[in-house]
């Protein structure tokens, strides 16, 4: 009986986290389209509900009632598995995100490594979808996206090392608490910029949306998908974007800490601050989508391997030397 109580308690906690995440994913799609439209002097979705807020709900309803087409020459098991993998990986990563010192589902020792591992697994959903479709465009899109995600993961890993040098722990709550005196965005500003750009590439957002470049590859790895399976890819993608924003907020913008530790700010709970920071980063994501043209593929690879990787490695050496020389290395 005790086991059942534990299980029910955990399921309750998980639902309490996942339902808001899924709802905010739907809202964020609407926000993305709205910002995109405003930059281009359009209105965007504004018909369904107040300000078009229910647009995503209407879209989801449409996807649910559409037919799911499975190509006859596809590899059926892997074809169906691919969107499930994408969606699951995008959601399980939220387990370690701390919303305050105590509000975290799993406060594990290696939180940042867990986040990094889950985001590096995200490439499988895309490769599986692209290969199992047994079609030219999805396959090309999958190959492109796998190469792109593996390349930019390397620089994200090196950037994480930079932050870890200043913290001395892999726990996400420790990383947040280490920023009480100063957010890492100030001393590590160049790393923040590179992290932001790598996050764009990692989540296949414009200007790095080559895997689904509609002018060249129809829709990349999603070409053969329809109905609910397409919607799952779509939800997984946006959940991943939110996750990357959360990661940026925790690593550089102080996570759930309030910007100033003075009276009116400390009244607001940490979760609200984290959400505000995630929204700020997402606003930047949406702006970039609207104002920057798409990169060419060789330029993208050059940027990842020849610019970001050497620069962030040099920054690791600089950070380590600075911390060592001034005896600031965190020792516990």
């Amino acid at each position, binding site marked *: 009986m005790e*086991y059942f109580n534990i299980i029910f308690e955990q399921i309750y906690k998980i639902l309490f986290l996942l339902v808001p995440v899924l709802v905010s994913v739907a809202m964020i799609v609407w926000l993305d389209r709205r910002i995109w439209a405003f930059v281009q002097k359009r209105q965007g979705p504004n018909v369904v509900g107040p300000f078009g807020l229910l647009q995503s709900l209407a879209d989801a309803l449409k996807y649910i009632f559409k037919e799911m087409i499975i190509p006859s020459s596809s*590899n059926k098991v*892997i074809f169906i598995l691919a969107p499930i993998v994408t969606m699951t990986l995008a959601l399980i990563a939220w387990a370690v995100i701390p919303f305050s010192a105590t509000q975290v589902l799993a406060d*594990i*020792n*290696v939180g940042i*490594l*867990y986040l*990094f*591992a889950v985001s*590096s*697994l995200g*490439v*499988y959903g895309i*490769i*599986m979808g692209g*290969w199992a479709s047994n079609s030219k465009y999805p*396959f090309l899109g999958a*190959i492109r996206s*796998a190469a792109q995600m*593996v390349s930019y*993961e390397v620089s994200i*890993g090196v950037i994480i090392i930079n932050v870890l040098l200043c913290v001395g722990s*892999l726990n996400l709550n420790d990383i947040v608490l280490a920023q009480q005196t100063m957010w890492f965005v100030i001393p590590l500003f160049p790393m923040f910029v590179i992290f932001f750009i790598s996050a764009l590439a990692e989540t296949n957002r414009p200007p790095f949306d080559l895997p689904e470049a509609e002018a060249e590859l129809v829709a990349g790895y999603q070409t053969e998908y329809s109905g609910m399976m397409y919607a799952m890819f779509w939800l997984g993608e946006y959940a991943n974007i939110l996750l990357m924003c959360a990661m940026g907020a925790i690593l550089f913008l102080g996570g759930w800490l309030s910007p100033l530790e003075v009276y009116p700010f400390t009244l607001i709970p940490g979760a609200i601050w984290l959400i505000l920071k995630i929204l700020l980063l997402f606003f930047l994501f949406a702006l970039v989508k609207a104002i920057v043209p798409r990169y060419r593929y060789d330029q993208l690879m050059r940027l990842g391997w020849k610019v970001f990787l050497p620069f962030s490695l040099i920054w690791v050496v600089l950070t380590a030397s600075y911390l060592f020389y001034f005896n600031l290395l965190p020792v*516990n």
Partner: protein
Amino acid sequence: MIAHSIFFYTFSLIAIVSAIMVTASKNTVHSVFFLILDFISISCLFIMIGAEFLGMIMLIVYVGAVAVLFLFVVMMLNVAQQKNQWFAGQATSKHIPIGLIISTLIFVEIIIVIGGWKFKPEIFDINNSVVQTNISNTHSLGQILYTDYIHVFQISGMILLVAMVGAIVLTFRQRSGVKRQSYIKQISRERAEGVEVLNVQSNKGVKIDD
């Protein structure tokens, strides 16, 4: 404790079954997916014995990078053609003796190591490093790896670097007749060297060099 053993047997069962399926499945891409499943369940086992750092590194390095490259190569193979070539007729039977010899060797080696561990445990306590329980295993791993074994660690890194450079040298070839773009050249172009304003007289035109 019961829950612990339930999880242990679940993960080990998945690991063993998927390891068998890596060799048994006829589709090479399926083999790689089973290999990934195997890696993931082994990293779950690592986490269960409290080695969470090793488990996560296993996920990042093997599943996130190595298996992606495997999949890359394997996806390029023509699966339909392979089925006809490799699994038709008796031609494959000559691989079986070699495979048996190698797997017997590996089996004997493992038996020797585990047997030695079981009956003479003092042989394995060479370093006598005291395991501290009050720090996380990432810290203790770092404290051993970067102090006692720093040279071995650096040498293994060097070997990897040499292997990488070697692979690049072997496959690199300078192709002639390829138009390359130089970013510095493109950015440092001025108006004066690109554009020239000419006074064109009517009915005569100008000669344009290109």
